[in-house]
């Protein structure tokens, strides 16, 4: 392998890792607060791409207006999903909430299939993202450079929100102790709703980037990235934003390197994440950054 192809694999790995990180943050935030897997997160990510498709291809708006609107709208959409799927079950057994989440995920997938048909649609990629840069013998899409930058910008924004604002303080309080936070006068429902909104907005950012890179959208495309990003969040230590970013990069790089160095095993690419998950859970169940939690009776 020469330096050029190595460089190409590295940029691919970094941009895929950034995408996984963006989506994994949504999982980790929701898990941190509600202690449940938001099974619908991957499908919210999928819906964001269809929103962009609607805006550009159907309503004919320019992408620089559509993309910010999609991010806001997906955030509201995520809040709506939370209102319907999780809020009525706040005090129900965990198994019911999990089933409700799976139901929501299937519902979104199938509604998307009915509305947009199962056939792949072409994502409206902005022209400047699709350009290709040539460095020596290597040609790389501009989007591969934009993705990590966008990820870092939103990550800084998120860390500011969580650590420096009052809303962020409320989020941290609720994730530490739900009951006590309520006693302290924090509006728990509102905080959960905002968390879903922020997580969904990041999923939308990930979706727009994903669509620009891979250029095809189907109703079932959210399943695999969804599962993988949950795995990324678990690997990094669920409930921890930095851990999710770390897990996302480990998974993205690992996947690309597997394909690069062992092309014969390309078919097993999707299995890689699951094997990694099971290994991590057995060796360090709380993930790389997680602390051990004592079980309370």
């Amino acid at each position, binding site marked *: 392998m020469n330096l050029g192809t190595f460089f190409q694999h590295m940029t691919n790995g970094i941009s895929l890792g950034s995408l996984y990180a963006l989506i994994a943050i949504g999982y980790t935030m929701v898990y941190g607060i509600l202690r449940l897997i938001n099974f619908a997160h991957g499908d919210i990510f999928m819906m964001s791409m269809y929103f962009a498709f609607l805006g550009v291809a159907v309503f004919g708006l320019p992408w620089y207006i559509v993309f910010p609107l999609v991010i806001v709208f997906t955030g509201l959409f995520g809040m709506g999903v939370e209102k319907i799927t999780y809020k009525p079950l706040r005090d129900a057994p965990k198994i019911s909430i999990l089933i409700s989440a799976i*139901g929501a995920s299937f519902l979104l997938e199938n509604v998307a299939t009915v509305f947009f048909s199962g056939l792949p649609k072409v994502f409206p990629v902005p022209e400047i993202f699709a350009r290709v840069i040539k460095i020596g013998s290597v040609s790389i899409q501009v989007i591969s450079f934009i993705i990590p930058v966008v990820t870092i910008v939103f990550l800084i924004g998120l860390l500011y929100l969580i650590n420096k604002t009052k809303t962020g303080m409320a989020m941290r309080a609720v994730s530490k102790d739900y009951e006590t936070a309520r006693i302290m006068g924090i509006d728990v429902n509102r905080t959960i709703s905002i968390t879903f909104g922020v997580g969904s907005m990041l999923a939308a950012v990930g979706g727009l980037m994903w669509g620009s890179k891979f250029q095809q959208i189907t109703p079932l495309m959210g399943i695999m990235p969804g599962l993988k990003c949950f795995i990324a969040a678990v690997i990094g230590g669920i409930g921890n934003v930095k851990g999710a970013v770390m897990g996302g990069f480990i998974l993205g790089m690992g996947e690309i390197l597997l394909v690069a160095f062992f092309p014969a095993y390309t*078919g097993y690419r999707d299995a890689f994440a699951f094997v990694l998950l099971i290994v991590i859970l057995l060796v360090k169940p709380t993930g790389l950054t997680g602390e051990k939690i004592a079980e309370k009776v």
Partner: protein
Amino acid sequence: MKKNSIYTLVALVAVVAFIFFAQSNLDNFTLRILNLCAIFAILGLSLNLINGFTGQFSLGHAGFMAIGAYTTAILTISPAMKQMIYVNVPIVKCLENLRAPFPIALIIAGLLTAVIGFFVSAPVLKLKGDYLAIATLGFSEIIRILFTNMSSITNGAAGLKAIPQATNLWWTFGIVAVTTLVLTSLINSSYGRALKAIREDEIAAESMGINLFKHKIIAFVIGAFFAGVGGGLLGNLITSIDPNYFKFTITFNILLIVVLGGIGSITGSIIAAFIVTIVDQMLVALDMPMNLGFINYPGIPGIRMVVFSAALMLVVLFYRNGLMGTNEFSWDGFFGLFKRKKKTGGAK
């Protein structure tokens, strides 16, 4: 008590007579649906043992079914047929001439699935709740990816075709009866009480001296066995299988049966399996165009699954206990139902 066993006997005879009649008189389509109902009852029961009675949220059923279905299929397809099916990559030598009669093949499939279930669950069962759910889901995805890639054993993505249609009502209903019998005796034994204790509170159960790991493994392995047998029956009913058939969707279908029937009720799972399978077949009509006289319904492809997933959500949101809750069928309860109905009818 004696009266009730007479009722049971009568009901059994009625079912046997029905199968005798159905097997020779009903058309293929109806037979297929009835078979599917029974197969999904077996699958629902086995998932209910793990999810409902033991409280371990497993989403790995599609993987277990795939192992069972492929094992039975490979054992029942004739060697000559195998050479025709494995076009791209020839089948490995040791499997080529391997053949077993259908019942033996089913048992082997069940045992193999149980063994794999054991080796999967031993490490995975240390996890709890969501982690267990995602790990078992991961396991079933790994199985699917392995089956897609191991062409010399599974014929890869093309799948297996021309599997002999050995499944009939005798097998499916017979195995539903066996499954029910095994599960009821398990659940009413000390093991069953231990499983329920684990479901209610793991820490309390452990401090009462219940070996958590051993009991969870028992539930998992028995569940895997019946899932394998159910998968085998399914493969030999639909006669062609491929790895994509065993996606998460089918686990979701079984989960819907368990939830609708009542998490932790054997009767519920069986009733729900029949309801879900029959309604599913009826909803196929929604995907097709039809003329209702007053409006022309254009037919929306995929609307069936929308109704299905909405149904699951509605059940969980508003009817969390399902049809039966954790109750079971009994003759006294059955007749009590009519009495109560009469009373309310009189009041009106």
